């Protein structure tokens, strides 16, 4: 079987997810050996962009160029994989979507003018169909490798559908939410990160976005019991995924 043609791209992004791929170190040679990497501007010049079996796209859709580029990549690719929480959920650029671009311009630049001809930050799926989503801020190296291994095997990867709490359990961490009353979003956040932050005593910020069937109602209730206001909790929940909002709770 011929090596799959792969392209790795970034829209409006910090390029952190692409950097994870470049920083694969031990596995980089294996990965590069298993695929036909045709376009990855961060690593090599002279990209070839005729067609792709798999396109990995980082970043959210903010400018008109982003949208055009994304549509172009989608048209040329059999599979489109969104990498990073910006691509999957909108990410931090989307945290204040509710304020609107004009208000944000005024706050940052002192003018209402649409300086960049931009929209509010949108995830890829708001613009084109996406075949698989790998969230993370940035993505976890081992999750990327597992997803790539699945794709190379001809299977669509399995999305991680358990919350960060399970990762904490594996590390036998003290529960920061229950025992320390901290604002930890672990119960509603997609895990797979091996509870990187709580394992170092930092409550989970939700940087992988919401887990499947996230029970926001319960999470908000627990946090309110611990003394956090509804507004504070809402802001925390919307930091990385502006759509994961309280409208889901009832």
């Amino acid at each position, binding site marked *: 079987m011929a090596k799959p043609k792969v392209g790795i791209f970034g829209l409006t992004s910090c390029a952190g997810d692409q950097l994870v791929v470049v920083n694969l170190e031990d596995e980089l040679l294996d990965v590069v050996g298993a695929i036909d990497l045709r376009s990855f501007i961060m690593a090599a010049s002279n990209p070839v962009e005729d067609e792709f079996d798999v396109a990995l796209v980082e970043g959210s859709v903010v400018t008109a160029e982003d949208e055009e580029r994304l549509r172009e990549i989608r048209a040329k690719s059999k599979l489109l994989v969104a990498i990073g929480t910006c691509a999957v959920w909108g990410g931090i650029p989307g945290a204040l979507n509710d304020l609107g671009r004009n208000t944000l311009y005024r706050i940052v630049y002192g003018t209402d003018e649409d300086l960049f001809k931009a929209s509010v930050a949108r995830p890829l799926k708001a613009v084109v169909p996406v075949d698989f989503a790998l969230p993370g801020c940035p993505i976890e190296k081992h999750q990327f490798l597992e997803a790539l291994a699945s794709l190379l095997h001809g299977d669509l990867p399995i999305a991680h*559908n358990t919350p960060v*709490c399970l990762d904490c359990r594996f590390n*036998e961490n*003290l529960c920061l939410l229950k025992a320390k009353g901290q604002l930890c979003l672990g119960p509603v956040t997609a895990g797979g990160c091996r509870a990187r932050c709580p394992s170092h005593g930092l409550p989970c910020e939700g940087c992988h976005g919401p887990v499947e*069937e996230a*029970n926001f109602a*319960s999470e908000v209730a627990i946090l309110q019991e611990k003394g956090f206001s509804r507004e504070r909790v809402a802001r925390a929940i919307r930091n990385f995924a502006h759509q994961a909002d309280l409208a889901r709770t009832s």
Partner: protein
Amino acid sequence: MLMTIAPDNLKNLLDKLARDRLLVAPSMEDGVTRLKPVHSAAEIAFDYSNTATSIKDFLFPQSEDLLRFVTDGTLSIEEIKPERAQVAFGLRPCDLASVALMDKVLLGGEFSDAHYQTRRNNTLLIGLACENPADTCFCTTYGYNPGWAGAADVMLYKDGDKYLAEALTDKGRELVGGPGEGLFKPADEAAGEAVKKAYAEKDVPFGKEVDVQGIDKILDGFFYDQYWDDISKKCIGCGTCTYVCPTCHCFLLTDEARGGQGLRFRCWDSCMFANYTKMASGANPRPTKKERVRQRFMHKLNYYPNRYGGSYLCTGCGRCVAMCPVGLHIAGVIKDVKGVKAHA
């Protein structure tokens, strides 16, 4: 025959055992007492109610290799068996009781789980009766008590400045006569029995609140009750309850392969996860949290006793009571189902 052992002699014995076996004992780490491998008795904590994790980790580990395979060219399969001899010290009655419940599932029936059997054979269980049951403990609900020896090979009871000891199995007697030679002294039978009785009758306040009598029969007619819709709204699907529970044993089998060879292993799974019963066709008999929450409690309190007769699949260790972030635990469910509203 009852014996006594001085604390120093006990520590000597444990050090001796640690030399050629894996010694697993309660040990403090980051403010939490866990059951974990230790290198010497000096690392053992003696001041604890119960360990955060249970003996399950060492008889039925989180992940366990089953076989190696080579698919390059032809197919060859090689079974992997656990070999390590282990000693687990400081096990509380609730955990000792849980071992018997696990035995029924994993060793009983038409098939016997060889890996679990091997670990059971290779593991010496030393129990330690409870001096201070926690306020989340309710072993007495199920007829156990702070002095219950369960599956222990040797059971110890702290008695003032020494331990009362009883070898209950051949393995236990081998320990006392072998590595333990010279370290145990015969006890006054009457005094020893009195110590055992005092432990068996020790007060477990939470246990008095939770009455499980006849709940399996009540649950026979409870499948369609609105209660499950209501109670499952709280559940966040984190799987913590199944993780810390000494009698939860659901597992999955999975392969890891690279370049024509690899490994099949099993690891813990949880009925609380969305994909647990999802079939390749996409059909899922338990599509929402309600079905899964109901499954968990029905399994513990109705399906298990119906299938294996008599016991419930719970020993009142209280870990789920302590660890569930939303307070949705079995003691509460028992109280609710029996009509006393416990959940706020």
